[in-house]
């Protein structure tokens, strides 16, 4: 495994780059990396991005933010302008007024469908997972979803998910739209690489691999054939300023929790 030390920070940086200035970005529960990515974006390249939080505080003061075990902790709302009930986030999504949502995936398949419900058969699961929260509601209607996974392996990156809690490109091509979901742009960001999807086939492909990660490591931890361009790019390292911001926002190193 690559030097694990800066992997969370590299992921946070890559996730933050998915937010453009002015975007409305949202995170759910159990989302330390999305909170950090949204904060970093706002403090660097996207000062006018709008911070929609599961703690319901709109645009909290980021110099007072301290990452906590729960992503709805009242301490994440210090200096907020208002409290936006979560139902307003779904209303905004339905009105096509949100831009980026960050969601997890216990299983992620080659078309970007995600499973957060069960491992095994739905009615008799081997493992009953906590459930997908907003995943089933938002993945069909968000213009952009960023899926993160802190521990990529063949058990996470699977050919076909056991249950589609979230819809990606379904079975490729235009099958997503034919199923009634709106067009979307998907990104997957893991501890190994950043992934996009082919314009036509909608199959997952590598966009960049993190520093010190090899192409073989990506293949060994992917349960399907994945396209890797010959001169694959290296994921951008966070700058000194980025690292300073990240450490200041998370002095308790909560961001490492998912990597253990």
């Amino acid at each position, binding site marked *: 495994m690559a030097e694990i030390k800066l992997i969370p920070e590299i992921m946070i940086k890559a996730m933050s780059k998915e937010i453009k200035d002015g975007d409305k970005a949202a995170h*759910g*529960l*159990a989302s*330390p990396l999305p909170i950090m990515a949204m904060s970093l974006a706002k403090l660097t390249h996207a000062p006018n991005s709008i911070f929609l939080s*599961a*703690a*319901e*505080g709109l645009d909290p003061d980021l110099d007072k933010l301290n990452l*906590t*075990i*729960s*992503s*709805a*902790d*009242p*301490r994440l*709302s210090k200096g907020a302008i208002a*409290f936006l*009930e*979560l*139902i307003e986030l*779904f209303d905004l*999504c*339905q009105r096509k007024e949100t831009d980026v949502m960050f969601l997890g995936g216990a299983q992620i398949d080659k078309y970007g469908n995600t499973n*957060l*419900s069960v491992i095994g058969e*739905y009615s*008799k*699961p*081997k*493992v*009953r*997972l*906590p*459930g*997908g*929260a*907003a*995943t*089933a*509601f*938002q*993945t*069909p*209607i968000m213009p952009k979803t960023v899926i993160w996974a802190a521990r990529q392996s063949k058990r996470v990156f699977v050919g076909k998910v056991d*249950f*589609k*809690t*979230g*819809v990606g490109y*379904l079975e490729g091509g235009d099958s*997503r739209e034919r*199923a*009634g*979901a709106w067009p979307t742009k998907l990104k997957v960001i893991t501890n190994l690489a950043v992934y996009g999807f082919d314009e036509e086939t909608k199959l997952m492909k590598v966009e960049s691999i993190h520093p010190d990660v090899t192409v073989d490591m990506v293949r060994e931890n992917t349960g399907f054939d994945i396209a890797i361009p010959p001169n694959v790019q290296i994921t951008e390292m966070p700058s000194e300023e980025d690292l300073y911001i990240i450490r200041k926002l998370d002095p308790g190193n*909560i961001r490492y*929790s*998912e990597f253990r």
Partner: protein
Amino acid sequence: MKEKLMSMEEAVGLVKHGDLVTTGGVSFHRVPMELIRETIRQGKKDLRIVDREPAIGFDLLIGAGAVKSVRFAMLGFELLGFALNFRKAAEERRVELIEDTCGAVLNGFRAAAMGIPSIPVRGIWGTDLLEVGIQNGNYKVIKDPFTGEDIIAVRAIEPDVALIHAQRADIYGDVQIWGGRFEDVWKVKAAKKVIVSVEEIVDHEMIKLEPYKTTLPYLYVDAVVHLPNGAYPTSCYGLYNTDYEHIRQYVQMIRDGKFQEYLTNYVYKKGR
């Protein structure tokens, strides 16, 4: 105005076996934990519980054997891992699971609050939860009567009881919720009976001095219980933080097979 201040025992006595119950707050925040503990102490059975993203509150009810079915969008302990009682009961199929998604659950409460039988929503298309929701009778694909487009209708969720914890109320049930309200306002308006525990009982005149702070006026509330620290170990905005160490201990005790000991120490022994 009718006084609604009651003892905890009397208020929770309004909950009946088999009721559809929802609880306020979210995850580890402003959850009516003492009302939940009293529900367990009173031996309520076959409850059908529903919430968007519950955590320790629902896990406790499930572990104590009070639950017949659970409707949820996510039931986990965030970075502290699985909700272990829930997971075990689910895998052993001792509780009926009704998996759902946040936007649908919230709109279901909103529909009931509006007095309408169902509400159309976007989202869910292409996911396997669409079929799950159709099969369990909570979703139906309909044609919008004006545009003709296919849309998913979510059946209204009308709980028999909503248990809520808040910062302040007067004896008539005029309630102030500070900080994130989550969907408490919708749950309260959707429910047939509303029981609110509060950190502080204040004079009616205090409420009238700042009416813009009244989140739930008395007409929505059936019972008020004075329970300082009533959200513990979850947080109460502006007053106390989540006791994550206690929650870690809860998780560890379940792992060690000591959940009955947890119930004895923290639920059945009153006066924490």
